[in-house]
C-alpha cells in the first residue's frame, strides 16, 4: 500500500459526513428530488465522488460492503474504502449492508440480497448505484410517500428490466431494498415505498 492509494478522503470527516448524510436523508425523505453532494473526495477513478462520499458517511466497522465485479477488480478501491471508513469488503452480497454498483448490468437480483424479514424489515441492504446523470435518461414517474402527487426522475444508465425488478421490490413491502442513485456530484433516492411508472412514448 502506497500513500497515494489512500489519499482523497473527507477533508473534515465530521462536517463532511454530516453534510453528505443530510443530502441522503433529504433524498430518501423526498424520493426523486436531486440533492447535491458537494463535499470534496477523490476516490480511485472507477468510484464516482458522490458514491464515495455516501459510502464514507454511512459505512464503518459495523457494516459489510459488497462491490460489483468491476469495482472489486479495480486495484485500490477496497483498500481506499476500508482505510477511510473502516468497513470490511465482502464477496457475498447477501451478507452486505451496502452494495456499491458501478455497472448497472451488474446489479444483482434483489432476491439474492438481504431484504429484511417481516419482523425486522430494517435488516435489509441499501444499494449505492453509480449513474452518469440523473436527468438525461428515460423518464421514470415516481409516486409514494415523500412525493406530492407524482415526480419525474431520469437517471441513466439504468439496468434493463429495472422497472419490473423495482415493482417486485415494492411487492415485498415492508421488506425490500433501498436504492441511492449517485451521479458524480448529486444523488437521488428510491426507498422501497416508491412506485415507478414509465412514461409512454
Amino acid at each position, binding site marked *: 500500500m502506497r500513500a497515494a492509494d489512500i489519499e482523497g478522503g473527507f477533508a473534515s*470527516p*465530521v*462536517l463532511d*459526513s*454530516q*453534510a453528505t*448524510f*443530510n443530502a*441522503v*436523508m*433529504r433524498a*430518501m*425523505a*423526498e424520493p426523486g428530488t436531486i440533492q447535491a453532494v458537494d463535499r470534496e473526495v477523490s476516490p480511485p477513478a472507477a468510484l464516482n465522488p458522490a458514491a464515495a462520499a455516501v459510502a464514507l*458517511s*454511512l*459505512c*464503518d*466497522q*459495523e*457494516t459489510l460492503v459488497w462491490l460489483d465485479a468491476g469495482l472489486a477488480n479495480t486495484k485500490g478501491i477496497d483498500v481506499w474504502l476500508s482505510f477511510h471508513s473502516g468497513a470490511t469488503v465482502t464477496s457475498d452480497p447477501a451478507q452486505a*449492508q451496502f452494495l456499491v454498483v458501478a455497472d448497472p448490468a451488474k446489479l444483482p437480483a434483489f432476491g439474492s440480497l438481504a431484504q429484511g*424479514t*417481516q*419482523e*425486522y*424489515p*430494517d435488516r*435489509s441492504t*441499501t444499494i449505492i448505484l453509480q449513474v452518469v446523470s440523473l436527468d438525461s435518461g428515460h423518464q421514470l414517474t415516481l409516486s409514494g*410517500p*415523500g*412525493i*406530492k402527487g407524482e415526480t419525474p426522475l431520469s437517471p441513466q444508465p439504468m439496468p434493463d428490466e429495472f422497472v419490473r425488478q423495482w415493482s417486485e421490490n415494492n411487492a415485498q*413491502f*415492508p421488506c425490500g431494498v*433501498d436504492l441511492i442513485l449517485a451521479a458524480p456530484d448529486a444523488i437521488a433516492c428510491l*426507498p*422501497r*415505498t416508491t412506485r415507478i411508472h414509465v412514461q409512454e412514448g
Partner: protein
Amino acid sequence: MTASNNLTHEGAPTMAGATYNFAYLDEQTKRMIRRAILKAIAIPGYQVPFASREMPMPYGWGTGGVQVTASIIGPDDVLKVIDQGADDTTNAVSIRAFFQKVANVAVTTRTHEATIIQTRHRIPETPLKSGQVLVYQVPIPEPLRFLEPRETETRTMHALEEYGLMHVKLYEDIARHGYIAKTYAYPVKVEDRYVMDPSPIPKFDNPKMHMSEALQLFGAGREKRIYAIPPHTKVVSLDFEDHPFEVQKFSEPCAICGSRGIYLDEVILDDRGGHMFVCSDTDFCEEQRNEH
C-alpha cells in the same frame, strides 16, 4: 484560597464545549443512528431498533430526540426546541442550551425560522414547511405495549398487520364512555400499513401529521427505537365509521391573544377556581399578539 480559585478558573474553560465532538455524539454512534433514520424513512411508521446511548440527562428528558437531533444537525442549522408547545420551559431551555454548547448552532423560538424543531408533546400551530425536520421525543414508542407487554408478541403483531386488539381497545372505550376516551398518544395508521404511536401529542395535533410538508422523525431513547414519517405521507387516526375521529374543541379563545381553533392550556390563577385558557404554543401566541 486564591491559588485554588485560580486553578478552578484555569480548568473551567477547557470544559466549555471544545472538548466534545461536534454535536456531542461520537461519529460511529452518529453513523449507526443515521443508518437507522434512513431505514425508518424507507419504512414509514416501522420502529427501527438502535443502540441508544447514555446521554448527559435522564431518560424521560428527551434522550431519544436529542440523539436524533445530534445525528442530523449541521453547523448551518437553526434549532428550535419546545416542551408542550412552550420554548421557555426547563426541558426546552436546557436542550437548546445543550446544542448551543456542543454544536455551536443558531437557535430560535420562531417556528418559521427553524430548520430543525425538537418537540416534546406538541406540533407547532404554524404549518411546517418543506425542508424543516420535526424531531419528536418519545417515551413509549410501541402503540400496542399497554395491550400486550411482550415485545416478541407486538413485533409479530406488526409483522402480521394484526391490529385487532387496538380496535377492541377503542371499541371498549365507546362501550364504556360512549366515545373514544383517548385524548393524547392517539394511535394512527401510516400509509395503510403500520399502526404508530405519535408520542403523547394531544389528538388535536394528529391531523397535522397527515401529508405534512416536513419530515417527521421520532426518537425513543430508553426504548431504543427510531421511526419516521416522510413528507406527503398518509397518516390516519384510527376510528370507526359510526364513531369518526374528532379533535378537541375549545369554547373560549386564548385569553392572551384571542386566537381560536388552536390548542389551549388551562392555567390556574388562584385557589378559588379562577382559571384562564391560553395558547399552548408560546411562539404562535406571541406572533398573534404582535400582529394585532
